[in-house]
């Protein structure tokens, strides 16, 4: 049975999620447990930062990480302003829609199960995970786009979402043998390293949105490169490096968009 840890620092969502989890056939276990298939944290403003750290740790340990927060109000900036946010699989607004949380959890779990079912091939595992990652990224940009006020920034984030959907299609087409993945190791691009990743705010500008995206792409590059180090030279390593290259090029692209947007000649 799938296990989920529920933590509610605000005491306003636990019951709804708990009931939905039970109804969906999940086993809700104690937060003292060391591992679980998923972690759902519902946080108030004060608990957001610890929650994000916990979720990042949970995700790195293999759990699906979900954050429920009051995004419509003060929670939005604090959450999106944190790098930890980039390691959350799904975000939900309060008041929480418990069944929706569990449907999303089930979706992510199903994707992962799909990966595991194909574990006879390391290549399949890698590709399935890559597709999940692209889905997760596009969902992230969608959610971020829904939360900003400036239509130009929203448009930028939606563009990034479409990029991720395109990456997913590219990987799927590669898996079906329809097209190759890009090879090489594109160099250059250090804007996010130089300027840093800005805080997410509902009022963020397009250049800041691009820097945030560059940070996310940088993490994705590092993810695949770190994974590649686990393999000796061979097709799996090559595949992971190719996936890293997709993300690296995307980082360069969003950094170029940052450059184009951040330094206008204006009257």
């Amino acid at each position, binding site marked *: 049975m799938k296990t989920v840890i529920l933590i509610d620092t605000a005491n306003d969502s636990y019951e709804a999620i708990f009931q939905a989890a039970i109804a969906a056939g999940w086993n809700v276990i104690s937060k003292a447990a060391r591992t679980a298939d998923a972690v759902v944290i519902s946080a108030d403003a004060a608990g957001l930062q610890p929650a994000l750290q916990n979720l990042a740790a949970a995700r790195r340990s293999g759990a699906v990480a979900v954050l429920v927060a009051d995004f419509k109000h003060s929670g939005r900036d604090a959450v999106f302003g944190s790098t930890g946010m980039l390691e959350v699989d799904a975000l939900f607004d309060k008041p929480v829609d418990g069944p929706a949380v569990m449907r999303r959890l089930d979706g992510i779990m199903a994707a992962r199960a799909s990966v595991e079912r194909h574990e006879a091939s390391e290549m399949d595992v890698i590709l399935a995970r890559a597709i999940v990652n692209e889905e997760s990224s596009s969902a992230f940009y969608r959610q971020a786009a829904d939360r900003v006020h400036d*239509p*130009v*920034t929203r*448009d*930028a984030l939606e*563009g990034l979402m479409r990029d991720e959907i395109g990456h997913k299609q590219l990987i799927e087409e590669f898996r079906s043998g329809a097209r190759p993945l890009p090879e090489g190791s594109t160099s*250059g691009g*250090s*804007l996010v390293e*130089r*300027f840093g990743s800005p805080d997410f705010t509902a009022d963020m500008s*397009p250049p800041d949105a691009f820097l945030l995206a560059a940070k996310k792409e940088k993490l994705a590059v590092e993810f695949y490169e770190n994974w590649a180090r686990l393999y000796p030279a061979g097709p799996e390593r090559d595949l992971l490096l190719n996936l890293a290259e997709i993300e690296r090029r995307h980082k360069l*692209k969003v950094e*170029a*968009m940052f*450059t*184009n*947007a*951040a*330094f*206008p*000649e*204006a*009257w």
Partner: protein
Amino acid sequence: MVTLTIDNRTIHAEPGQTIMEAAQSNGIYIPHLCHEPRLKPAGACRLCQVHLGDTLRPPVLACATPVSDGLNVITESDELAGRRKMIMELLLSEHRVACTSCDADGDCALQDLSYRYGAKEWTYGVYQHDTTATPNYTSLNRGIEYDVEKCVRCSRCVRFCDEVQGVCALTFDGRGITMKINTAHGRPLHESDCELCGGCVRTCPTGAMREKGARGLGRFKDVTKVPTTCTYCGVGCTLEFNVNPRTNRIVRVTTQPGMGSNDGNLCVKGHFAFDFVHSPERLTKPLIRKHGVFQEASWQEALAAVGRGLAAARDQYGPDGLAFLSSSRCTNEENYLMQKLARMAGKTNNIDQCATTCHAPTVAGLAMSLGSGAMTNSIGEIKDVQTLFLIGANPTEAHPIVGLEMKKAMRKGARLIVCDPRDTWMAKRAHIHIKHRPGTDNMLINAMMHHILTLGIHDQAFVAERCEQFEALRENVRACSPEAAAEVCGVDADLIRRAAEGYAKGTPSAIFYTLGITEHTCGTENVQNLANLAMLCGQIGKPSSGINPIRGQNNVQGACDMGAIHSVLPGYQKVGDEAVRAKFAKAWGGELPTNLGGRVTDFIEKAGEGVLKAFYVFGEDPVLSEPNQDKVIADLKKLDFLVVQEIFMTETAKLADVVLPATCFAEKDGTFTNTERRVQRVRKAVEPPGEAHPDWQVLCDVSTAMGFPMAYASASEIFDEITALTPSYGGMSYERIDKVGLQWPCPTKDHPGTRFLHQGRFTRGKGLMHAIKFRPPAEVPDADYPFILSTGRTLYHYNIGNMTRKTEVISQKQDENFVELHRADAERLGIVDGGAARVTTRRGSIAVRAHIGDKVRPGGLWMPFHFVESPTNRLTNDAFDNITRTAEYKCCAARIEHAEMPGA
């Protein structure tokens, strides 16, 4: 890639390259005289013979043999040395060996190769040596000298004139030993089609073609080459001043293939127009007006007077009481200091430069449409454009090196569409020339869009994904059929249709425009409408596809970048943004002003109204450059205090209370930013004349005299401050821009610069389409003034002419004002070609030489504005663009009549 071996060295080459090209791109020298990387192979000199495989096989010509995989090339052998020696001796037999008195001594391929192969002058006898030099096509010309007895008939000059310059002024005349270079019918060079670009001189491998003005002033071994950036126009050509340190004199100008955006090409101004540097008319001492006349003064006295005059206006009348006009002629460092001086010492945002006079509508229009006002492509991309769409631009005269890139594109098969009321060089060679009425550009563009939409050939996906307000645009152009536009514009509707289809379908298409678009009361709208057209067709945001305003003055881009604009600080950071002001206040050590500030046209008006009391003019001459000259003079005379910092006694300087002698670009270190946003080095080549001080020092001294001390050790230190405060320049340093410059945005130390803008996304997100209605010019012809007068630049002069007119070779070619009018009008009015005509508008009248022909439309007049004794801006209309206050130089109502003799 192709792999081959040259002299036992394995190299890689591009397929299709010749052996010579492959060798040169790998740093391997093969002897040659006729080869030039910009020219097609000629195989004329036979010196580049090489062996293929082994030395037993007959040699082939490296310049005409393509590379192939596995080729083994041997460039030196006893046999090749023998052949080359023989060729050199044959050449020497026809060559007057006069190395001791030749300006090319030490810079002569004939000399080098003769020495290398031990060639003797007398082996094959002597021809021509004992004949007295006979006059030739250059004898009467003041710029270029051709010595047939030093000519090796390599044809580089003839081919350059044809293949690169596209002028075909030079040709071979005669056969055999009597063959020589000549113009058509042997006309004197300055009376021929020659544009005096100097390309023949630069490409000549011997001393046959040289600059007359440089004769005896310095040979190769006498001169130091100082690479710098040209001071004329916004192209920013890289050139080398050949300076004789012994005489502190620029002897000649050179440049090399592969050097800069100009790839070793220059125009007449870039090659010749530097006599002004050493002109005896240069200002050498500060001058103070006392009792109505100028008297020489010490710097201490002059600076104290300037400090007092400006500070008094500031203290008594506040920020609106004084204004600063910076200079697009000057460096970024100086413009930066000038706006800092205005804001920190003057406590005012009344700071401007000539962008208001020319391309301000570009910045305003493109910023509103796309989010950023800069040229979207690079000069190097022009050669790959498939459809060149020129409107209100005359690049072969105003930006000749951009013109050369367009010629390259045309040679590669590009289609050329020109919309211009005049028969310019490009118009005459265009596939489609729309010779519309001046001031009707918006009607024309709307009609093009109407036709594109009617055919449905717009880029629907691009419009849907990247643009907004499309429906408003569609609705706006619905009534603008080609037939309706034909009536307003005075052209054939079918031409409009063909132009529209050609632009929309000719991917990649690129728009190029200049002041023919911006210098109108609807200038900003014109620019917005061109952006509409580009967006509608998806012809933007890609390599070789975009919208490209070609900037006029050498550093107008940089002057804007540096914040010499009332509303923005360096890097277009808004004055109105409190956080931005706080950042600069911290860096500069004082509060920044918050007044709105104005533009140069405002300054002059406010002076006339008695509101502006003190005016600091740096490197500009508004009396000649602003419209309605008489009013400008009257307004400036009302100032309490006028200070002018200049290299010559300009018309504005003549009105000043204090004149400070300035240094020209050859006397200073710094940077210019060209039209493609490339920041390039300017280097000091010679010492300034007399007591002229570096301008950045003068600006610091003035600031200090006004109570805001400024001090820097060098121009480099100023640039470092600029990069620290200007994010788009943040990754630059003198070291990084040393060779080829960098294009902004370049925000980090490892950023490669930005070649083209708007890839994938516009700066403002979605491109904003504007519904632009046609508005006629502020003045239209009527019974009293039945002509439309337009003004512009010629190839030979630059703006107010105070630099180019100091050059003898140019004066010989063009030294007086003129008016172009149509032959039908001339005949009706009894005006003859070359005779005098008086042009009159509601503001003034001048008499000039008449140039009669078909270049302008019937009812049209065109005049340049380079001539101080015949100031065309006495006539132009001080009606302004609503948004940028740019004057309508391109259209005013005028009348013309026969006159007795030219003269103002």
